[in-house]
């Protein structure tokens, strides 16, 4: 298959692994963060980390939108879902995220009309098919998903669909990266940049990382060779004393992003002053809400929501995992009290969550080549 088979070629993978092995300095421990949960998933599915030398460590970043939703927002969603006459719609994984008193899936079992959709446009179709019901879409995701919600809201307004509204939990990628770079817990040598977020925002928003923090960034695709190639490119930057944003994923990511997507997002959304991230706390200007022009479609204004902040469960160490401070298997409840079937923390929910990726593909320690 074009664009896939050639990026899974085992011979090329071994050649790249040999180049990486030759490029690392013995005695230096390299820590690279893969920002996007999609990369985490691919790394463990294909065993990319097994091809890396022992002194190259991949740290999993906060780029799984399910994993960063705090419990209080789930509680708010469930409160809306229980309102009489409401059809509550959301992406599938969101249904299993635990709130303080159960998940959306459990609320559905208790009688709330909660439906899984693959696109916000599906939620709008449900609204048009059920004019006597209030249909609410629980929007999550980074800049990849936000244009889809924005276009849906534009359509809803243009078509006069008055029984549709959106509870907006969209987040932006740059503020958490800045927060991580400011964190004293973490020393990173470089970043594998998010491939599909960059199709929308382009490469430019990541230029602050080399400029302000002196760390290289390589935007990468999701096939195993993409990830190995990106690591090779970061090592080349370090070796040559360069520090810049490079685009390994040129076959998909335009340097300037998708300007039309950015325009529609700017029309429909505005930045919240601050937004809570699971495990990371409140981060300034990191979340989106509907702009004044679209306030009539804002579910948080249409319905009464509790808006109560709920602390993460004590046993759960999602915050440390999201910051890359600990590995998933170092969490006290990993694989015992917390599993994909019965998650305590959000990182175990989504298949792109670091804990679920470890659980599904990498539970067992593997030997690595010592350098």
């Amino acid at each position, binding site marked *: 298959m074009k*664009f896939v088979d050639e990026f899974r070629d085992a011979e090329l993978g071994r050649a790249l692994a040999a180049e990486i092995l030759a490029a690392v300095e013995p005695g230096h421990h390299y820590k690279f963060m893969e920002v996007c949960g999609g990369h985490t998933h691919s790394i463990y599915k294909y065993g990319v980390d097994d091809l890396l030398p022992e002194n190259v460590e991949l740290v999993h970043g906060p780029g799984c939108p399910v994993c960063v939703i705090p419990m209080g927002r789930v509680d708010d969603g469930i409160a809306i879902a229980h309102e009489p006459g409401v059809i509550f719609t959301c992406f599938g994984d969101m249904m299993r995220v635990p709130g303080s008193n159960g998940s959306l899936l459990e609320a559905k079992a208790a009688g709330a009309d909660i439906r899984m959709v693959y696109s916000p446009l599906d939620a709008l179709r449900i609204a048009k098919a059920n004019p006597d019901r209030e249909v609410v879409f629980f929007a999550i995701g980074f800049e990849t998903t936000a244009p889809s919600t924005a276009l849906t809201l534009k359509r809803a307004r243009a078509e006069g669909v008055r029984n549709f509204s959106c509870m907006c939990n969209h987040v932006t990628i740059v503020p958490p990266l800045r927060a991580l770079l400011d964190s004293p817990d973490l020393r990173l040598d470089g970043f594998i940049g998010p491939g599909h977020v960059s199709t929308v925002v382009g490469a430019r928003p990541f230029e602050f990382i080399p400029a302000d923090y002196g760390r290289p960034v390589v935007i990468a695709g999701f096939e195993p060779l993409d990830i190995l190639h990106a690591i090779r490119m970061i090592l080349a930057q370090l070796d040559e004393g360069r520090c810049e944003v490079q685009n390994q994923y040129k076959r998909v990511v335009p340097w300037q992003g998708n300007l039309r997507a950015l325009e529609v997002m700017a029309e429909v959304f505005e930045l919240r002053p601050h937004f809570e991230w699971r495990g990371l706390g409140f981060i300034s200007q990191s979340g989106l809400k509907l702009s004044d022009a679209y306030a009539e479609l804002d579910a948080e204004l249409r319905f009464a929501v509790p808006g109560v902040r709920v602390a993460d469960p004590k046993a759960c160490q999602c915050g440390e995992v999201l910051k890359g401070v600990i590995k998933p298997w170092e969490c006290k409840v990993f694989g015992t009290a917390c599993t994909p079937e019965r998650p305590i923390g959000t990182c175990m929910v989504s298949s792109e969550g670091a804990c679920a990726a470890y659980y599904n593909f990498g539970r067992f320690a593997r030997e690595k080549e010592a350098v």
Partner: protein
Amino acid sequence: MTLDCHSDHCITCSDEGVPMKVLGVDEERVLALCEGEDGSRQSVEVALVDPVAVGDSLLVHAGVGLVRL
């Protein structure tokens, strides 16, 4: 869409797109009928990438074409 949370690229959990081929275009509604690599078909919003033509490949995420491949 046949993707679910156990497939390679789970559309419900974030920031991955899937390549799809355009089979037909409804210019008035800015929609295209697209087919994925697994044969699944989906109506895709193409406002961010139009004009599109039959045979084009798009990266699709959450029902929206984000970029022409």
